[in-house]
């Protein structure tokens, strides 16, 4: 970002002022410049620490195994030189159904985030704008559940979902069965409702003036209409925040699908990669796989960088 105030040369007026108090200004300027130099130096060192593993990953994904190991002892490890090709990527597609894994992850992520936005925003609306008995108790319970880490209920939850009823089509007949293991719904439904999302929506909605509801009610609007036509359109930032905060965990899910999904055609990318990694140690291909599932997220992040950062910041300021 550019900040004109810090520019050394501020035009004629600045120069006149500078010459008026020449001696102090020159040393001050020099001091500030060395200060800036050290800042940039420090930030660059950190930038290298944060980037080197990822650069190494992308570069290695383009090289044959022998060359990866050979380049490790020199700066060549970070440069796409030598025998560069996409062979590792083709290798990944030959070995495992990556396209299916990607489809599964996209499906699970889109449905979890999309349904979550609807369900949690409605709950936030009910809690912040409607007067009904018991809503304070409900809100208190929701806030209390924020302290429960998913890891502590993961194992009992496997036991629980294994007993839930589900509908199946068997030989053209719709039947019901028990057990949610190895399905799409087991990867989606438990993560739709989210206490933190409800909390964020409740907070945000309560900042919108109540007079809007009253005006709409005088015009004969029902509560659902008020939610859909007034509150939702006014709450873009809240929806963006919740979408971003739920997108990353949904895409990165690992522990849960590891336990509940054994069928290969239902696996998401992260679990698929762990299996791939175990059956094969051709590092070039492993790096191709990790690059393949990292790139889409990285691109989404770079495009929506500003929204990402402000969402994370919003999640912390409230705490």
């Amino acid at each position, binding site marked *: *970002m*550019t900040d004109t105030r810090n520019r050394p040369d501020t035009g004629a007026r600045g120069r006149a002022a500078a010459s008026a108090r020449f001696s102090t200004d020159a040393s001050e300027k020099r001091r500030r410049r060395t200060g*800036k130099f050290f*800042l940039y130096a420090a*930030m660059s060192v*950190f*930038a290298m*620490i*944060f980037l080197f*593993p990822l650069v*190494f990953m992308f570069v290695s994904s383009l090289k044959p195994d022998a060359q990866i190991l050979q380049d490790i*002892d020199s700066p060549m490890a970070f440069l796409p030189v030598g025998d560069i090709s996409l062979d590792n990527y083709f290798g990944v597609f030959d070995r495992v159904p990556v396209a299916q894994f990607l489809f599964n992850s996209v499906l699970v992520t889109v449905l979890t985030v999309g349904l979550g936005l609807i*369900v*949690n925003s*409605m*709950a936030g609306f*009910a809690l912040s704008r*409607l007067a*009904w*008995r018991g*809503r304070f108790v*409900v809100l208190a319970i929701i806030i209390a*559940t924020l*302290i429960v*880490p998913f*890891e*502590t*209920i*993961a*194992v*009992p*939850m*496997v*036991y*629980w979902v294994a007993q839930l009823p589900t509908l199946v089509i068997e030989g053209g007949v719709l039947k019901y069965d028990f057990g949610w293991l190895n399905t799409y719904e087991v990867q989606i*439904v*438990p*993560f739709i*409702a989210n206490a933190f999302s409800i909390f964020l929506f409740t907070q945000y909605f309560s900042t919108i003036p109540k007079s809007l509801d009253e005006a709409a009610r005088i015009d004969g609007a029902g*509560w*659902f209409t008020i939610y859909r036509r007034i509150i939702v359109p006014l709450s873009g930032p809240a929806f963006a925040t919740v979408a971003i905060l739920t997108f*990353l965990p949904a895409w*990165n899910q*690992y*522990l849960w699908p590891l336990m509940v999904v054994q069928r290969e055609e239902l696996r998401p990318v*992260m679990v698929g*990669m*762990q299996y791939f*990694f175990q059956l094969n140690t051709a590092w070039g291909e492993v790096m191709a796989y*990790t690059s393949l599932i*990292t790139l889409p*997220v*990285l691109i989404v*992040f770079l495009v929506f960088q500003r929204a990402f950062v402000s969402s*994370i*910041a*919003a999640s*912390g*300021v409230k*705490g």
Partner: protein
Amino acid sequence: MTVTPPTVAAETPQRATRRFRTTKGRETWAGLAMMAPAGILLVLFLIIPVILAFTLSFTNARLISPNPPRFVGLDNFVRAFTADGVFVQSVWNTFLFALVVVPVQAGLGLLLAVLVNRRMRGVTAFRVIFFIPVVTSIVVVSILWRFLYQPNGLINSMIDTITFGAWSGMDWLNNPQTALGAIIVLSIWQAVGFHMIIWLAGLQTIPEELYEAAKMDGAGPWRQFVSVTWPGLRPTMVFVLVTITIAALGLFVQIDVMTQGGPVNSTSTIVYYAVRKGYEQQEIGYAAAISLIFFVAVLIIALIQRRLTREKD
């Protein structure tokens, strides 16, 4: 009493109260209806599992078993603390991990936030770079760093170059002395950007005038940090410490991908051990007991942190 249709009711003298009552009734009904989808899902996939975790921990339930679960009282808890060396080791590893990660990650995050909290050319680019590991999946990060930590891997070759060959490197993840430390380093590397952003948000709530006043009084950068920045960051600090601690205690993916708890249980953690017992070895009752112990630990630590950071106000 006869039931009067609403149109007729509207013309009776009590219509004001009646309308009020129906409006209120409708509001309650609407509130419940709009709360219902999230409410039902939360009960099914949060409240019931929590209750299950609690009740199963007093039984000998197994994931797939012909026999129904039997009540065994406190047996699981007694077994965990007195007869299960691996569990005790896992508890120790988890706390050691948190003990290092919490202060280092919080401190480094603050340092980065202070570095990038200024208007300078290119500062946004640095923020983005520092944040990139956060959006990279921890599974990817774990696999990648497992490659970097190999005996003939990049980390050793870099150390070799920096020390001009004086130090020949080691097999980081297969040495009980270094495995947990190696996982600590990559965990900090991955998540520090997240906390940088939180600190940054906190830094930006501190009014600029305070710094100007401090400068007028002749305060240097360090004095400004101690007297203005740090007191202004107190609420942020609570949040950062609590989130890092809870995240650190939940350490699982890195272990599962990189070491599977080895070598000789030197990297086994509470959550990893619970999943191994409950899922792989199907001892759901025992795993539920471990989960419950974990939850109580998280709760106690969160409460202690709240209290400690509040007291000084």
